[in-house]
């Protein structure tokens, strides 16, 4: 059976096409202002990648921030459900999933069968979300990827007094004006980000194995920062882009015939 998952997030949209538990094609695009346009575009690319067309898809599930506005899916499910399912497929031993997206941060605890036991989320405050990194990269004047790389070359990382993105932004500007090395600022940004994520995650009784999904999971500086604060290593998702975990979960749940909100 050929199935598809489409995850329309605030910053990026992801689509996955699967057949009998294997990925045939996937794609990630920057989200547009209109969620349905993002969905059509990313699904088109994933289908092209798989060498299929829309009519080959038997079932599909939509998820993410813009899930209510995806025209072609049969059902929609929450990001929590989809990320948990996707993470379990990517890392079968996983018990805690940390998902950091462009505009939110969530952590889910799974039972040994992959059912969600408990979850915590922050979507109220930009601090600890991809948005924080984005704002800081813009102030420093580097790309998001470079910000992560630069942090590893820091010698005297700066400390931010405050988690608030607005205040941290002012701190960064002050540090730049004072001539502080950008590497040291980047490391400070990463440290502030990881502290915020780990503070949220620690509201769960974290159990191993832990893995991280979402776009921010591609940032090595953040990954190792979280590991340092947790005190152990996480399972790295290497087989596929950790950013497509939600879309993978959506595709798997489509195959399961999981009941969601019918469209």
């Amino acid at each position, binding site marked *: 059976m050929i199935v598809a998952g489409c995850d329309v997030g605030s910053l990026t949209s992801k689509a996955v096409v699967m057949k009998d538990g294997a990925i045939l094609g996937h794609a990630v695009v920057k989200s547009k202002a209109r969620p349905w346009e993002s969905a059509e575009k990313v699904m088109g690319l994933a289908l092209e990648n798989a060498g299929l067309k829309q009519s080959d898809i038997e079932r599909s599930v939509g998820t993410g921030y813009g899930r209510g506005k995806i025209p072609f899916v049969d059902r929609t499910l929450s990001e929590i459900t989809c990320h948990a399912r996707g993470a379990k497929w990517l890392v079968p031993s996983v018990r805690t999933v940390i998902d950091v997206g462009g505009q939110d941060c969530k952590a889910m605890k799974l039972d040994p069968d992959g059912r969600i036991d408990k979850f915590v989320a922050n979507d109220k405050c930009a601090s600890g979300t991809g948005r924080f990194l984005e704002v800081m990269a813009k102030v420093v004047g580097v790309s998001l990827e470079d910000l992560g790389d630069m942090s590893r070359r820091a010698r005297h990382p700066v400390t931010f007094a405050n988690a608030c993105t*607005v205040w941290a932004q002012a701190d960064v500007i002050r540090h730049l004006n004072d001539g502080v090395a950008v590497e040291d600022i980047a490391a400070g940004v990463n440290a502030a980000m990881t502290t915020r994520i780990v503070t949220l995650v620690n509201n769960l009784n974290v159990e191993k194995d832990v893995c991280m999904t979402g776009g921010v999971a591609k940032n090595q500086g953040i990954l190792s920062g979280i590991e340092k604060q947790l005190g152990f290593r996480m399972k790295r998702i290497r087989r596929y882009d950790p950013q497509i975990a939600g879309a993978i979960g959506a595709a798997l749940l489509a195959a399961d015939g999981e009941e969601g909100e019918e469209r």
Partner: protein
Amino acid sequence: MIVAGCDVGSLSAKVAILKNGDMIGSAVVRCGTDPDASAKAALRDALAGTGLSAEDVEYFVTTGYGRKRISFGNHEESEIVCHARGAVAQAESVRMLIDIGGQDAKAIRFDEDGRVERYFYNDKCASGTGRFLEIIAEALEIELEDLGALSRQATKDLLLSNQCVIFAETEILSLVSEGMEIPDIVKALHRSVARRTSAMAKSIGLSHDIAMSGGVAKNVGMFDALQEALKCDMVRLDKPQVNGAYGAALIAADIVASGGNRPQD
């Protein structure tokens, strides 16, 4: 007896000069990078036209975020204490003050003598502070001073769904691109800040009358929104922005009158 109070905040420095208990001069200047220089500039402006010079000032009480870096102060006092004292002196019926500054917000409850009973202070989150207004004004390319008048032109009640300044900025820009009217958006912005500050005030228990201080108090849109959120009429202070400096100056007068006994001594 000539005394002065100096309140150096994150964005502006304020000075009030008292002669035998009456305010004879005051000034507000935008802060530079050096709090001491900003305080001196405010002092110079406050003295202008009084016929006095800095040497005539018998006693200085300093307060605010930058108080530790003012070179000419005789005594430091917390801004919470100064604001409470200043508010009761400006309007004797006031028992609660909401102060929205450039980088913080406070709610202070006090007795009829201006003694602080309880207070709540937020400097952790930019939402609910003057910075929220500044950032949005900048994004909308509106002068900060025009926000109040604009919000009074609103015809619709919009509601912002995001409390975080960063998220709200994006939300507001998308409201603009959807064709919403600027006055309606500005009113929604004020209501959003008011929602946050009123929650803070309610958390320590409201006590009437309520007044507003800080530079943001000059913004009529903010004043309206706060009255709406608190469901009461608020008192307007004549000099909301120098309230803290005025309180500091009153404390300076007390110290001089008591022969130099400082409050904590």
